[in-house]
Structures are given as structure tokens and as C-alpha cells.
């Protein structure tokens, strides 16, 4: 099954050809975030090739509009829970590039003190609750975060991201069943990048439309491409409003594409170069930039923005390189709160 454009877009999702200045500034900010994620991960890939980053490294490259657009639709007090492909989500939720890169380097200054690595980005001050390594296991957990919001009536909304590879496992079903039953303020966002590691959609799902499952749970659904970061923001915003105002969950499927392999060890031989090139032409970062220039966003400001991103990435890498390794004294206190229980 080739990637398809067959998904119908609703008329209100059509983006006007010209944008007012304030919206351009907003788009510029989202563009900056996406570019920052892209450049950080490109540097991470380089560092990985040099052996400075170990273990798994699942890159978000190509999917940036999903995390950036969705998180633009929520507040600082809202929560985000995601899978192991979590770098972009963490940055979009406010984690500093330094904390991210240092964690990838396994350094003491990383967000999790070098204990978590690529798959476990946590930044509680910004509501970034991981970074979880077992496919689908975090979906009930995210529902639990939303449960706590409803229990306390704190008004917060939880976004739960996962790949389409997660929708066949029990955690997906149980998490959505309970969130629907208890009307939890959560938005489930399936980032459908067409491959469950190396296995394409048609070999993992009998029904391609993930959101049809929402009908069975009795919750609202939405489905669209991630080409336009503003469209992602707007559509997730609708689901967020439903969660916040009505305490109702939504299942959203966003069709996207990762330009790199599943992880750094994956040469992605299961797809053709043509397919990849076709998707790269739909790169949401290029699209956002084109949109900015077409609408007259100041070139000098754009240059400054891009230079700023480069400087921020260089600073993060330098910080990670120069940071100390964690001391073994961190091990026991991070296993238990209070005395160690042996």
C-alpha cells in the first residue's frame, strides 16, 4: 500500500493563502521549534556515529510538526506522555536543549541525570512525563495522569502520543477503554508514520484507519496529515477544548513519516528511496519556511532565527560534551525515595 493522500480534509482545515502578522510570528515560533528539534537530532546522530551516544536513538526527524503543533495547542500546566521517540516532544514541551543533549550523552546534567537516556526524557517542571520504552505500556499511565486531573479538578489536559505500532497491543485498548468509560481529559495522538519498526501498515493492521477504533469506545476522533504545523495545532486544539471543557477523550490519528530508520541501527531497507524522497518533498519544516517567506516574513528575522537555532544546538552539544559523568552515588537514591529497600 503506497502512502496515500486519500484522507479527506475538512473545509475548515484549508489554510488561507495570506496570514496576518501575529499568526506569522506564531508560525515563526513553531518553525523555530521544529528546526531546533531537527538540528539537535542531526547532531545527536553525528554524536551517535562517533560513539558518544550509546544504546538506542530513535529520531523524530520528519515528524516534528506533530509534536510541535500538538503541544502548541496546550498550556504549560498540561501534561504530555509519549513513547521512546521522545526528543521532539520533550523540546516542544519546554525541555532545554542542554538537558536533552546531556541526557543523550548519559551525563549527570541530563534531564534524568544520565540514568534514562534517549527513551526517557522527563521534565516535570514543564509537565513532560516521559519518554517510555515499552510500546503501548504508557497509554494507561497517561490515562492515569488525566484521571488525577479529573480527581483533583485541576483543569489540566494530558496529551498521550504513540505510534501506529502501539494500537495492536493491550495497553492501547485498556487505556482507551478506561479513559472513555471514565471520561478523562486526555487526547490520544497516534503518530502514524506508516512503519511499525520495519513493518508497513498493511502488514500490521486489517483496517488502515486507526480512528475507527474510537467508534467502539464511543469517543470523538479526528484524522489528518501532519504537513502543516498550524493545522495540527488547530485540530488538536479542538480535541484539547473537548478534554478541558467537557472532560472527554479524543482519538486523533496524524499521518506522518520518519525520514530516518526506526533507530540508528536501522538502514530502512524495507522502503524505497523514491518513497522517501516523495515524503521529503512534504517536509513540514520546509513547508513552514516557505509559508513564512511567501507571506513576507522578514528575511533578516528568519536568518536571525535560524542562526539562533544553530547557536543553541552548538551550545547544547558543548554543554553535553563538557558535563561530568554521573556518580555511582546517584543509583540508590533514584531507585527508592528514602532508605534503600534491599
Amino acid at each position, binding site marked *: 500500500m503506497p502512502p496515500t493522500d486519500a484522507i479527506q480534509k475538512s473545509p475548515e482545515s484549508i489554510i488561507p493563502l495570506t496570514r496576518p502578522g501575529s499568526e506569522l510570528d506564531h508560525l515563526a515560533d513553531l518553525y523555530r521549534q521544529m528546526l531546533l528539534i531537527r538540528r539537535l537530532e542531526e547532531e545527536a546522530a553525528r554524536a551517535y556515529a562517533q560513539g558518544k551516544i550509546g544504546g538506542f536513538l530513535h529520531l523524530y526527524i520528519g515528524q516534528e510538526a506533530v509534536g510541535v503543533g500538538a503541544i502548541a495547542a496546550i498550556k504549560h500546566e498540561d501534561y504530555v*506522555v509519549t513513547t521512546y521517540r521522545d526528543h521532539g516532544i520533550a523540546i516542544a514541551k519546554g525541555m532545554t536543549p542542554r538537558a536533552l543533549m546531556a541526557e543523550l550523552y548519559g551525563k549527570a546534567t541530563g534531564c534524568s541525570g544520565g540514568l534514562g537516556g534517549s527513551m*526517557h526524557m522527563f521534565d516535570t517542571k514543564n509537565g513532560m512525563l516521559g519518554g517510555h520504552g515499552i510500546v503501548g*505500556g504508557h497509554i*494507561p*499511565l497517561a490515562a*492515569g495522569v488525566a484521571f488525577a486531573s479529573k*480527581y483533583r479538578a485541576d483543569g489540566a489536559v494530558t496529551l498521550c502520543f504513540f505510534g501506529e505500532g502501539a494500537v495492536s497491543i493491550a495497553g492501547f485498548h*485498556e487505556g482507551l477503554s*478506561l479513559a472513555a468509560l471514565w471520561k478523562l481529559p486526555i487526547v490520544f495522538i497516534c503518530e502514524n508514520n506508516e512503519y511499525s519498526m520495519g513493518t508497513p501498515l498493511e502488514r500490521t493492521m486489517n483496517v488502515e484507519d486507526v480512528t475507527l477504533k474510537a467508534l467502539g469506545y464511543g469517543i470523538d476522533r479526528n484524522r489528518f496529515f501532519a504537513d502543516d504545523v498550524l493545522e495540527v495545532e488547530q485540530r488538536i486544539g479542538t480535541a484539547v477544548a473537548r478534554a478541558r471543557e467537557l472532560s472527554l477523550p479524543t482519538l486523533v490519528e496524524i499521518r506522518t513519516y520518519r525520514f530516518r530508520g526506526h533507530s540508528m541501527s536501522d538502514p530502512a531497507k524495507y522502503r524505497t528511496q523514491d518513497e522517501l524522497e516523495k515524503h521529503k518533498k512534504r517536509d513540514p519544516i520546509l513547508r513552514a519556511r516557505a509559508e513564512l517567506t511567501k507571506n513576507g516574513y522578514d528575511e533578516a528575522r528568519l536568518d536571525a532565527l535560524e542562526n539562533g537555532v544553530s547557536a543553541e544546538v552548538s551550545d547544547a552539544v558543548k554543554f553535553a560534551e563538557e558535563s561530568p559523568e554521573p556518580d555511582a552515588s546517584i543509583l540508590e537514591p533514584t531507585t527508592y525515595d528514602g532508605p534503600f*529497600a534491599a
Partner: protein
Amino acid sequence: MPRVIRFREALREAMIEEMERDDRVFLMGEEVGYYQGAYKVTEGMLEKFGPRRVIDTPIAEGGFAGIGIGAAMVGLRPIIEFMTWNFSAVAFDQILNGAAKIRQISGGQLNCPIVFRGPNASAKQVGSQHSQAMEHFYATVPGLKVVAPAFPADAKGLMKSAIRDNNPVLFMESETLYSIKGDVPEGDIIVPLGKAQIIRPGTDCTIVTYSRMAHVAMEAAMTLEKEGISVEILDLRSLRPLDEDAIVQSVRKTHRCVVVHEGWPYGGVGAEVADRAQRLAFDWLDAPILRVTTFDVPMPYNAKLEELCTPQPERVIGAVRRVVSRGRAARST
């Protein structure tokens, strides 16, 4: 003031008092509310606290275990009931990769203050899938705490400690203990996690045990007393943290040790106790440490075979006799 109540009432009293004390504490599980608890542990709690805090779930252990963990991450203090610990197998990933890891993978930014509780190990003829001693799987996992009380007062005191602990605590009860009675003080009694208790002092052999097997060991000790063998029984109460000092102290006194628990002999809590006792009290031991466990097979349904497979006083008596005679023979040569 002490009064005599049942094990299940002691558990309930602890949960009610903690829920009255702290709005962040809530109870969730299958049949805990309207049904009044599959084993009546939670009887009356829905009426007392309402459906916001006493929450019936569908049959989805992985789902509601995960919901509890997520809620605990952001500051609530859930009590999650498994109708039996056997059903926690489908929530194992949530406990192993969620509850036990959240603090570590967040570099200490988050805690997971949650209690998982329910009946564990054998009941009566419920077959292999419903008779398993699950504590052995869980006690091996760093990041978890595991407790298994034998008496109503400990059930109450340990439950209160478990609910107030900032770490995940797995609370192992026993269907066959729910109706036993014991003195339980009213009000705020706390039994700290990680503290064993000598429930019978003796001089010839230490039996290290916990949960229902503490009662089996007591029965064995009474018979052995008539033979002139004085048994000291150490009720672990907590399996992780394990009260190593209490084990070592008792073994140094009696010079012999038998570990009695349900569950299979391959690895497990008994092997852990034996390892620590031989490492830390080697020079005091007069005999090898023996273990009395469930047989190394899935639990049979047949009543006689089930009895055969599960530790009974006779098997405990046999093990104690062996280590005592071995010790005496060794000393006389």
C-alpha cells in the same frame, strides 16, 4: 485499646483511616465498590466514600494498574486491588516497567506512591492459575517493596505504612487468612516496613517464614516442643526490604535455620534468606539451611494432591528434625 477483629476488617480499617486522613488516597479495583469486594475486604467503603474514591473497574488489570501508576506519578496515592495476585500477571509490565522504574528513569524527579494489594498464593482447590505465590517474582525487583503479613494487627499497621510510603508497595494477603481473628489496637498503629518479628522465641532452630506459613510454622513448633525441640519463629512481614539483622541475630542464637514459604523452590524469597544467612552467619551454623516450599509443579486441583504440594506442618517438622539432628551430631563429633 486492643480488640479482636478479623484480618479483612483490619485491612479495611487501615484503608478507611488513611482515606479519612488524606484525600489523595483512593481505592480502585474489580468489584471493590457495589459488590462490596470479592472477599469483602472493602465492604462498606463505597457507601462511606462514594464513587469518586472507591472505583469499580472493568476487568482490565493492565489498564487500571497503569492508571494508578500515572495518578501516583502526579501526586495521588492509589490503592489498587487485584482480585488475586495471580491476575497481576497481565499487569506485570505496568508494575515492572512503570511503578518500579518511574523514579529511576526520571532521575528522581517523580515518585510512585502506590499500593497494590490482594490475596496471594494458594486458597483451596482453585487450580494452578489461581494458586501462585507471586511475591517471589516481585521481591526481586529493585524499586518495589513487598510485604506479606500473617496477623490482623500487622495487616493494619503495615497497610498504613504502605499507603504512606512514597514508593510502590505490593501488599500480599491470603484468602485463607481473611477470616482469622486477632488483637488489633484501635486508631493509628504503624508497623514499619522492613521489620521482622519473633512470634515465638526458641533456642534450637529458627524458622523464617511469613504470611499463612507463619501459622503452619506455629503448628509445627507446638508438636516439636513436645519432642523437646525449641523452635524460634521469625515472621518476616516484609520481604523487601528484608530484615537481614533479625534473620542473622536469630540464626546466631539457634545455629540452625529452616525457611518456610509457599511458592516454588527454584530461587525466590527462601533462597534469598538462605543466601544471606549463610553469608552473614556462616560461623554460627551447625547445619545446612533447609527450605520447605510448594512442590516444583503447577498447583494441582485435586484436594489431596494440593495438600501434598503445599507446605504442611509435617513437612516443616521433618525439616526441623533433620537440621537439629544434623547439628547435634556435628557437635558431638
